[in-house]
């Protein structure tokens, strides 16, 4: 049979595009690439950490993969592949597919899969995650980011109190070239802030230490900021930078801002750099990004149990009171696999500390997530499951019917 010739004329392009995007071939190729980048991304995180692997393989449009660490090969990124898959499923399995009762199961299950992918995208684009750490009796509405650091500048009023903060956000800091730096004009403040030597992982070392003798960088108050190798677990990196505050009349103040805290305990406040400019006092610090939830959580009791005679945690749970203006207080238990969901936020029992607990007083750490697509995977699973079950039953009935008719014929 002679092969039909393809009409490549521009008028036919929409049809060709439709055919291309709805084809099984495209689905198969995209799925093969997804498998490949999933495998490469899995291996990549062994040496480079999860965050780096996510960025390079799973949430990228394109990437260069080094085979055996040597041979660069361009590959499509996870985001691009999932987008193509979404389009392919929408056109091929929902729009183009022949609408017959026979295919209703597969149609429904593809809807479920589309919902799963859409949920993934919504999570990627709009979800936020952070943590809240509380000692027993402590209450808070502040959630802290795991990895995002920002510079805050606050005018200090009265007895070292600040009411308003100007922020250089983490997105801006992360793009900074450590060797060049950048000047920020913060509106309504009588000075500019010049940030240089921003290192994602840094260490402030006294110049008397041998390690800083020949190290590059500015010496400020007997200290130098040294760049450190990045940890594969991005949460462990502690950034630092040199900050210079230049007033309109040439007045200057400079310091090393470093995110280090001696213990990172929940009630420990970061030490700000206090300076005067134009007769006013200001405080500057580099700290993790924080945001508020519309209610307060008070930790009433933290229960920590180990399996008897072992160091293995059996259970850790927090008994909290949720407090909100104009609402009655609510007692809630948060434990592993039983989070608290409220007002679009979900509080999970994540961890506890400090490392030498229970010798020192224990604190409880909650992961706090805000995800508009939080429950979409569950619904997607229900839809897909129903679809596949219908398809299975229909197929079984058809086979059964066919077999009966075959037997009747024979």
């Amino acid at each position, binding site marked *: 049979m002679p092969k039909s010739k393809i009409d490549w004329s521009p008028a036919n392009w929409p049809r060709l595009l439709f055919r291309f995007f709805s084809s099984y071939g495209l689905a198969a190729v995209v799925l093969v690439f997804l498998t490949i980048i999933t495998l490469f991304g899995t291996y990549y995180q062994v040496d480079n950490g999860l965050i780096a692997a996510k960025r390079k393989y799973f949430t990228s449009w394109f990437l260069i993969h080094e085979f055996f660490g040597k041979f660069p090969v361009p590959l499509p990124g996870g985001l691009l592949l999932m987008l193509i898959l979404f389009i392919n499923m929408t056109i091929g399995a929902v729009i183009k597919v022949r609408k017959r009762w026979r295919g209703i199961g597969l149609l429904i299950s593809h809807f479920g899969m589309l919902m799963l992918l859409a949920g993934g995208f919504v999570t990627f684009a709009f979800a936020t995650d952070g943590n809240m750490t509380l000692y027993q009796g402590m209450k808070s509405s502040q959630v802290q980011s795991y990895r995002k650091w920002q510079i805050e500048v606050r005018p200090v009023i009265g007895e070292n109190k600040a009411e308003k903060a100007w922020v250089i956000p983490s997105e801006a800091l992360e793009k900074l070239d450590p060797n060049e730096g950048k000047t920020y004009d913060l509106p309504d403040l009588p000075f500019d802030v010049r940030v240089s030597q921003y290192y994602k992982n840094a260490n402030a070392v006294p110049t008397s230490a041998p390690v800083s003798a020949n190290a590059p960088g500015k010496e400020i108050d007997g200290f130098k900021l040294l760049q450190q190798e990045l940890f594969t677990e991005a949460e462990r990196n502690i950034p630092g930078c040199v900050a210079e505050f230049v007033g309109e009349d040439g007045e200057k103040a400079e310091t090393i801002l470093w995110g280090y805290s001696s213990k990172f305990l929940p009630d420990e406040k970061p030490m700000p750099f206090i300076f005067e400019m134009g007769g006013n006092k200001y405080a500057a610090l580099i700290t993790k990004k924080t945001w508020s939830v519309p209610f307060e959580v008070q930790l009433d009791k933290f229960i920590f149990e180990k399996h008897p005679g072992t160091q*293995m945690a059996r259970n850790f749970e927090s008994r909290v009171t949720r407090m909100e203006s104009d609402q009655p207080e609510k007692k809630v238990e948060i434990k*592993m696999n039983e989070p608290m969901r409220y007002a679009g936020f979900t509080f999970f029992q994540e961890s506890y500390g400090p490392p030498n607990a229970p010798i020192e007083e224990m604190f409880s750490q909650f992961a706090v*997530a805000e995800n508009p697509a939080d429950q979409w995977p569950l619904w997607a699973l229900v839809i897909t499951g129903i679809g596949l079950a219908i398809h299975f039953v229909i197929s079984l009935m058809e086979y059964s019917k066919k077999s009966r008719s075959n037997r009747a014929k024979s």
Partner: protein
Amino acid sequence: MKIWNNSFQNIREQFSGSGDLQIATRRKCSTAALWRSPMLLVATLIALLVFPTVSHAAKDISVPLDSYETWSEEAVEAFDRIMVQEGGRVKPMLTYSRFNMMKFLGGGTKTKFQTKDGVEHKIGSSEAMMDILFKGDRARFLPFFLVEDSAAVIQIGVSPKSKRDRYSYEELMPGRAKLAELAEKYRDKAKAHSQNKAVNPDLTLDEKMVLELGGAVSSFEFLLGQFGFARKGEMLVNEQILPDELKQLATKLDMAEMLDKMPEMTIDQLFQTIRSAAGGTEDEKMFSSAMRLFFFHANSGIGVNLIQPQDKETEKWVSVGEAMITGLEKKDNRPWAKEKMAATQKLVEAAKESDSAFVNVATEFYEGQKALAGQRNNEGKQTDREVKYYNAKYFSNSLVFFIIAFVTLALSWLSPGSGFGKWMQRITIALSVIGVLLLIWGITQRCLIRNRPPITNLYDTILFITATAVLFSLALEWFTRIGVGTMLAVFTGFVGMWLGITFEAKESSDTMGKLLAVLDTNFWLWTHVTIINIGYAAGLIAAFLGMVYLTGAFATRLMGKAKESRKFFKTLNRMTYGTVCFCLFFSLVGTVLGGIWANYSWGRFWGWDPKENGALMICLWSLVILHARMGGYIREVGINMQAIVLGVIVTFSWWGVNNLEVGLHSYGFTEGVERALHLSWSIMGLPFLLGVFLFFMDRSEKQAKLDAGRKDDLAAEGA
């Protein structure tokens, strides 16, 4: 009844493709059986690889004991039932002995040796533990330490025996100090490596062996010293640290009486007291020495937790050493501490007296534990079941059935289609059914003992996946009746049970341990974990079917019998495809359920964790096969080749990601599976290569047909 029969018939036909295929395949058995010859070869090769490692061939080792009086069965039974708390759970001494001895014996549970009277003895792990705890004077001479390479003993200055041999504690004693020194050094090196792998090198094989030997000898000494207080004057271990006058004193001093005379103090205060030089009168000096002995025995007696604590609310059991310390701390505790010391002492003395005395005392001890447990949340209520479970040896018996089934299957292939062959096939199926029933019963017992779903750790996955794979294969055989399902049932049962037994021996640790807080949920263990493992089993079966298809198809093609066996391979291909669909369904549902669980426990549905990625890759590759087939990009050979790739992905997801040692699913890490994985991938690679050949053979045949067609056309045009 008829309705049911019809339904089954229908389903069978669905899998077979058509109702008359069964008849066809039965008639043309000789043709269809062609695929079996290469399979027989492959199976024999695998068996030759596997069989030598199944048994731990023990050498006869002569020991410098005049004779050895074996413990009676009743004594062993009484000892096995005694309850002990270890790893956060209450278990029978049988389990405790089994895994502790496995650590010494390199995964084995039996010790073979010959005494001077020429009698050969073979003792199990319980007898060995009884010797160590109660008859340490003879345990020191028994060859409990397996040294894989004599290089390890040479390093510590002990004269080696053969390259791989067993040593007694006495034989290792000359190198004890050196062993302690090297073990500490290598422990530091291993720690440095784990902290910074890029800078600090890992231990060499020899160093690892020395470190393991050091650990085993320390554990042995720890067990040997447990009931030291009850053996007046018999120190057995660490006696070199005691001066002669203390050894003398130890022969007379009763520790329970001593406890009465001591002032209230903590163990730290006791330590400070005995550190300060004894002065004053002779009596004061004597008392100071007695306190040193008390400290020595109390410390040596910490570890084997046989005693329920005084406080009913406290879950942690204590050892006799801790009971002594509790008594030391407060006079009010002393009656209780003395009672526990007396009960332990009775055990030790009865063991020396006679087996029958030991049976009575051990039974009394156990009954006492049970009575107290009844008042304390009924802890250890399943220990009797656990004793029965281990004694029944469900899994090794299951392996035996699969091995016999393997033989009968091979016999059936010698004369396929004959009456003998058919009977051998039936026997094979019956043996496989018995094998899998034993396996399922064993799994059920484990569920009852733990009050948990079937899978809570890696070992459980082996058992569960094997059972699922065997049942699935038998179901395939029921529907298709072409012999492949039977072969897969035997093969997966055999390999799975061998893997389970090998894994248990290699890990040498309790396989029913307690769970991490995040896993403490029966709902998700029942749903996500069970479902995803059914998906793993189906993926592996699909890969095996692919291997059978490609090997068989290649062989028949070489023999020029491709046409005759067409229907057979068509059915086989349907089986592969159906199994891939089955795998997709369970993997997809299991993976999404896992995501939902992760959303409940970690706050995110998907985190690109290696274990999650492994499951995702199984789903993705199954979808690749389905879509490529529907698009016409792959046909029979392609489907089966891709099914093998699916198998590789399943093994990577099941075992490989654990070796990456990253991610939140860190409860599944294990060592040394990399080599086994590479071996399995190489085995799967061979039929895959045959698939490549088949692909090119198909293509050249098609090309030849096209060329022939063109020539005919040209000839017709010319005419």
